[in-house]
C-alpha cells in the first residue's frame, strides 16, 4: 500500500548540499588551508631537510627571531617595497587614463577591440611574461635595444646592470597589470548612472571636476580591491622575476619571494622560509585592512 504521507522525491536529501560543496571544500583544504597550516607549524620547528640529523624539533619563535634580525630579509623586503611604489602609481594612472578613454562615447568597434586586447596580458602566465621580458631586454637582439639604437640613444645591458634589471622587471609588471587596472576602473566608471554624469556635465565643463567629485566615489571600491590584490601579488611575485633575472644582478631584483624561495629550496631551511612566508601573510593582511579602512567607501 502506498504511503500517502511520503513527499515526492525531488532528488534532494539532507546530504545533497554537502556533496555539492564537498569538491570545492576538499580542493580548498588540499591546496590552500593544509599548506598554510603546514607552513605555520613548520615555522615553529627546526626544519632543514638538508640536515636531517639536526632533527625537526619545535623551537618556538627562534625562526621568527632569526628572520627579523636577518638584514638580507629586510633588504629584499625593501627591494619589494621599492618595486611596489615604482610600478603601482604608474599602473593606476595609466589604467585610469585608458579607462577614461574607453569610457568616452563613440568608436564602438575599436573600443570593443581594445577591451579584448586588454585581457591578453592578464591571461599570460607570469613565467611567459618573464620569457617575453628576457627577449625584449636581451642585450644583443632585444627589441628594447633595437629601439634605443634606432633613436640614437644606444642600447645597454638591461638585465646585466642593477638599475636596468630593476627597470626591466618593472616595465614587464606594468605591461602585465595596467590592463587589469584599466578594466577595474572601466567597470567603476560604468557604474556611474548616466543621468548623474549628465547632471554634472550641466554644472561644470571641467573633466577633472567630473572625475574628482562624481566618478571617483564610484572608483574607490575598485581601487581598494586593486590595491589589495596588487599588494598581495607584488609580495608573492616570483615567476616573472625569477625567469628574467633570478634576483640579480647582485641583489638588484632580489624580491622577498625570491629570497624566500632561495632560503627554502636552495638552502632547504624550510623552517626559516615558512616563518618568512607567514610574516609576509601577516603583512599582506595588515596592508589590506589599512586600505579598506582608508579608502573603501560604498557610494550608495
Amino acid at each position, binding site marked *: 500500500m502506498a504511503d500517502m504521507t511520503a513527499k515526492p522525491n525531488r532528488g534532494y536529501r539532507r546530504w545533497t548540499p554537502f556533496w555539492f560543496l564537498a569538491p570545492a571544500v576538499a580542493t580548498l583544504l588540499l591546496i590552500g588551508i593544509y599548506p598554510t597550516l603546514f607552513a605555520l607549524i613548520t615555522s615553529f620547528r627546526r626544519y632543514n631537510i638538508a640536515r636531517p640529523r639536526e632533527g625537526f624539533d619545535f623551537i618556538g619563535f627562534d625562526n621568527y627571531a632569526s628572520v627579523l634580525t636577518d638584514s638580507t630579509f629586510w633588504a629584499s623586503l625593501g627591494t619589494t617595497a621599492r618595486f611596489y611604489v615604482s610600478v603601482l602609481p604608474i599602473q593606476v594612472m595609466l589604467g585610469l587614463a585608458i579607462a577614461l578613454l574607453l569610457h568616452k562615447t563613440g568608436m564602438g568597434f575599436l573600443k570593443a577591440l581594445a577591451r579584448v586586447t586588454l585581457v591578453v596580458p592578464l591571461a599570460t602566465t607570469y613565467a611567459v611574461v618573464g620569457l617575453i621580458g628576457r627577449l625584449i631586454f636581451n642585450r644583443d637582439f632585444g627589441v628594447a635595444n633595437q629601439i634605443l639604437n634606432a633613436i640614437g640613444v644606444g642600447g645597454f645591458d638591461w638585465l646585466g646592470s642593477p638599475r636596468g634589471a630593476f627597470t626591466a622587471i618593472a616595465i614587464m609588471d606594468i605591461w602585465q597589470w595596467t590592463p587589469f587596472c584599466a578594466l577595474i576602473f572601466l567597470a567603476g566608471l560604468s557604474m556611474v548612472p548616466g*543621468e*548623474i554624469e*549628465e*547632471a554634472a*556635465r*550641466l*554644472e561644470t*565643463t571641467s573633466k577633472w571636476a567630473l572625475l574628482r567629485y562624481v566618478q571617483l566615489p564610484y572608483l574607490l571600491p575598485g581601487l581598494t580591491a586593486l590595491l589589495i590584490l596588487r599588494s598581495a601579488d607584488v609580495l608573492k611575485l616570483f615567476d616573472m622575476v625569477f625567469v628574467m633575472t633570478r634576483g640579480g644582478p647582485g641583489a638588484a631584483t632580489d624580491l622577498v619571494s625570491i629570497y624566500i624561495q632561495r632560503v627554502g629550496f636552495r638552502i632547504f631551511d624550510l623552517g626559516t622560509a615558512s616563518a618568512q612566508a607567514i610574516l609576509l601573510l601577516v603583512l599582506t593582511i595588515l596592508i589590506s585592512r589599512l586600505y579598506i579602512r582608508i579608502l573603501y567607501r560604498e557610494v550608495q
Partner: protein
Amino acid sequence: MTFLQLNDIRKNFGEVSVIKGVSFSAERGEFVVFVGPSGCGKSTLLRMIAGLEDVSGGAMSIDGKDVTYEEPAKREVSMVFQSYALYPHMSVFENMAFGLRMAKLPEAEIKSRVLEAARILQIEPLLERKPRALSGGQRQRVAIGRSIVRNPKIFLFDEPLSNLDADLRTQMRVEIAKLHRNLGATMVYVTHDQVEAMTLADRIVVLRGGLVEQIGTPTELYDRPANTFVGGFIGSPKMNFISATVEQADGARLVLNHAAFVGGHLQLPFAGAAALKPGDKVTVGLRPEHLSLDAENPVLSLSLDISENLGGATQLYTTGAGEAVTLLVAGRPPLKPGDKLRVGINADHIYLFDAQGLALRA
C-alpha cells in the same frame, strides 16, 4: 522677444532619424510642455536643448546666443531628471551647492542661495542628509532645488513626476506651477501625461514620430486640434472618432452619413462645407464630456456596453453601428448594459477632420 529658438532641429541615431526637423520658439518666462507618446522624441529634444545630445542638423539659440554646439554647462540651463540624478555621496546641501562651487561663487553666496532654495522648497531640515535617506518626493525637491540655486536661463524637466505615486504627483505638479509663477522663469517640461501638459503649460508642443503635430495653448489644442492625433491625445477620456461619408455639402450646411447617427444622417451647419463634395470621407470627432443623454435633438443612437461609476460622474462605453463611443456624464444615470441611448451634442462641439485626419476649418 524670443528667448529659446529651435530652428529645424534634427537628430539621427545612426540610420534612424528621431527628430525630423523641429522648429519652435518660446518667450522669456514661458512654460512650454513637450508632450507625445513614447518614442516621439520629446526627451531627445529636451536633451538636445540641454546639450546632452549632439544636434545632427539645424540651429538653436538661447537668449539670443547660438548654443547649437555649446557645451551643456555653458548654456546656463538646468535640468531635473526623471531619476532625480542626485549625487549619492553628497549631502542635500552639497548636492545643491555643487554647481555653484564649480562656478567658483563665494562661500557666503553659495550658502545664502542654497538656504533660500531650501526655504522655498521646504527642505531645510533635510540639508545634512544623504539622498538615500530621502523619500522620492523629497529627492525630487532637492533636484528642483539644485536647479533653482543656479538661477538658470531655462529650467528643463524630463518627466520629473513619473517616478512619484499619484498623490505626490498631483502635489508636486501644483508646486511646480507655483514655482513657475513665483520665479517667472522659462521652463521646458517633457511629459507623456496630457493632464500634466494641460495644467502646467502656457504652450504645448505635441510631438509624434519626431515631428511637431501642433503648437498651441492648452485651450487651443483642446478646442481646435489640428488633426485627429492631437484631438485624440489631448483630453481625457479620449475623443471619439466616427468615420462618416459626406451626403450633401452646400453653402453652410453639411449632411453626413453613418449608421450610428439617428436616422443614419447627421445634419450640421458648417461654413467650410463648400470644400467638400458628396462621397468624401470625413472623421467626426466627439469629446466624451460633450455628449449628453437628455438632448432635445439626439444625433447618435447607441447601445450601452458597460458603465463605470466614477462617483460624481459616470463613464459609459457604448457602440453605435460598430463604432465605439465613450460618454462622460454627470451623476449616475440608471442604465444597464444593452440599453439603447439617444445621445445629443451641441453642434459647436463637433470636430471635423478630412480623410487624411487634418482638421476641417470653417
